[in-house]
């Protein structure tokens, strides 16, 4: 039970790993993505992506700016223009 999560910027592939859940700051509100999420696409606003490695674990936050998120068969892909930290 794992969600494949990829965070990509123009400069490089920042993350590519299996995680439990990711909370993405969408333009119309934050949304959490678990494994088996229906195909979905949204633009994102500037904010923090929260990555939960395992259930109940403290989230790791990654600041992203500009971009969009896509949920497909092979997991969640966040395409961001800038990533801080």
């Amino acid at each position, binding site marked *: 039970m794992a969600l494949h999560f990829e965070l990509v910027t123009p*400069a490089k592939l920042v993350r590519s790993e299996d995680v439990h859940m990711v909370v993405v700051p969408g333009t119309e509100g934050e949304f959490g993505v678990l494994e088996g999420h229906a195909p979905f696409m949204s633009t994102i606003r500037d904010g923090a992506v929260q990555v939960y490695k395992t259930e109940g674990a403290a989230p790791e936050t990654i600041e992203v700016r500009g971009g969009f998120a896509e949920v497909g068969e092979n997991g969640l892909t966040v395409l961001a223009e800038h990533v801080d930290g």
Partner: protein
Amino acid sequence: MASLKELKGRINSVKSTQKITKAKQMVAAAKLRRAQAAAEAARPYAERLSGVMASLAGMVSGDSAPKLLAGTGSDKRHLLVVVNTDKGLCGGLNSNIVKAAKVKARALIAEGKDVKFYLVGKKGRAPIKRDFANNIEKHFDTSTVRNPGFEEAEAIADDLIERFEKGEFDVAHLVYPIFQSALAQDPTVDQLIPVPSPEGGATGGDAVVEYEPGEEEILEELLPRYVKTQLFGALLEREASEQGASMTAMDNATRNAGDLINKLTIQYNRSRQAAITTELIEIIAGAEAL
């Protein structure tokens, strides 16, 4: 016949040239590795983006499509975005890019279109100015930053999109070198605006994808981003091509300088020997006369 002193001077000057070309070659080799890594690291983003583009472009069609995708409806005025390097010493790279751009420009002019140039990088200015002095829109300077990155690509893309929205041109083409290897960099011409609809975009069959806010809004945000990514890719390819071409050119130059030094040294030794022989003959002749 050059005098001994002159020959010595020439040998020394060729030697210092060789030192410069050798240093430049080694610098280029070191930079090439980094530039290549950067170009490769940028590929996943571009791939994902065009994947998403393909699936979206198929869905939004007809009149509702944004201008960046559908075009202005005419194709009279063309803009050639030519990406050149800022520094020389890289062999025929820049002249190849310029040649490709000029071929494209002539072909378009022959079809009766208007052609303008938008130049990125210093080295394309002079040769394009020679043939198309009145057609140059703008020089975009990338020489002030060390490693042109996403910010520069963003600035160029924003500028281009603004001009497009104002209706200054109908179609934009991007001319840039694609890095194949240190020996080969192919100048390529790609259509940039309107964004060419990706082929085979019909995904069909797939589960219904939900869009937030909506397909059109996403597409509208996506298209400028796609243009930026294209330009960013072009800048990275240019960087890798420049270093690759520079490495090869400087390797050749170093080798040629070595050959020249050998030839000059042989000539120098010959004339030195000839001078000694003449001197000896003079002394012997003088002794015999006594």
